[in-house]
């Protein structure tokens, strides 16, 4: 049977993380499952977790009056969801809703922040990985703004 450390190690987001760091972060992790339509978090709520998606797909959306819930992005297996737990005021900026049955590893944000405070190497490694995701998503958002399929 796979341990939590094994599950974390095989997820692309934490691939190559040092074994001692895997041991530390595994202590802040738990397996979670969401049914289709269930919310992982809601806009404005306290951002106390983040998720490594193992199976399934999650829609990040926001509610616009008279237009309803608008999906900004979908996040699927192998991807990471949530970085608001890293920065004050630790509030979610969007809703996250499972589009199908979704299995994930949830990390306790407060627990991880404390671990990073104690071990700056771990903190740097986490920030480096999240920064890379942020850059990718910023680029993707810029492309969305460019409306790249408008002309070909």
């Amino acid at each position, binding site marked *: 049977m796979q341990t939590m450390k094994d599950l974390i190690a095989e997820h692309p987001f934490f691939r190559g993380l040092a074994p001692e760091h895997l041991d530390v972060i595994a202590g802040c992790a738990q397996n979670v499952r969401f049914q289709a339509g269930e919310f992982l978090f809601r806009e404005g709520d306290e951002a106390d977790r983040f998720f490594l998606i193992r199976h399934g797909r999650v829609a990040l959306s926001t509610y616009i009056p008279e237009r309803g819930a608008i999906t900004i*992005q*979908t996040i*699927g297996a192998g991807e990471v969801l949530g970085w608001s737990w890293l920065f004050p005021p630790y509030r979610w900026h969007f809703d996250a809703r499972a589009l199908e049955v979704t299995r994930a590893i949830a990390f306790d944000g407060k627990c991880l922040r404390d671990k990073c405070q104690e071990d700056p190497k771990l903190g740097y490694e986490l920030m480096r990985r999240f920064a890379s995701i942020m850059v990718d998503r910023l680029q993707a958002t810029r*492309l*969305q703004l460019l409306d*790249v*399929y408008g*002309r070909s």
Partner: protein
Amino acid sequence: MDTGEFNTGQLNTGQLNTGQLSTGQLNTMSAEPIQAVDPMAPRWHRILQRRRENHDTFTLELTPVDQGAAMTFAPGQFNMLYVFGVGEIPISISGDPGQPERLIHTTRAVGTVTRAMSRLGKGDVLGVRGPFGSAWPLAQAEGRDVVIVTGGIGLAPLRPAIYQLLAQREKYARIVILYGARTQEDMVFRRELERWSARLDVEVFATVDRATSGWRGNVGVVTTLIPHAPFDPDDTIALVCGPEVMMRYTVAALEKRGLTHEQIYLSMERNMKCAVGFCGHCQFGPKFICKDGPVFRFDQVRAIFGKWEV
């Protein structure tokens, strides 16, 4: 002949360079380009069917008025379509190379000629010159994974390649289609995408920039599908077609997955006029898109790709 050239018989002045194709590779295809008398003389074709793909995109199925031999072509090639009294434009062939009797083109109504073309209907006549240009490297892709990355109407020049890949499915490892569109209403060939998606031997991932009601698929640009798409970067050929800005970011994402420039093929688009390399309108650095392209291996165009003025 292994120089990458083949004689279409269409040119009195020499050979039409197909870029990636050699005679041996052509022999592996289901169809070979036909003999034509003069590449500058249009052949009249009648519209058999006109189909609307979305709000501004339409497909025309043509048949020769002279009832002569059907035009055979290789996936990726294009024709010059001439609307009488309006003008002529290059349009990729979007039909099945295995069914050359159904000469099919798909285009958007965005300019003077295409808008005039969009007003034509069954029975109307067009002039057609071609086929011209290079083809997708399907022979080189044999035995390997093939990932197709496309956006918007960029799927049209790739559809013949998909038909051929599926017709010879046993020759390829994984086939992965990544398709992006502005919204689900902007998608082209939606029914075919669904049909391919239902097959067990093809993986299709579609995404939209903006989710409208009823869309339950992915949201985000097509490049976001690349990091987790199921293909082996060490043994993959990527075929990419779409607006140039999309292709720039697609190449970057494919590089990040580990593909080399020699594994990536793009279909370029420029203002093609003569289609045989005489007029220079489509010059792209040292190359002419019409006769050296439109399909290029990325390393052949990397130095000038994305430049403002070439």
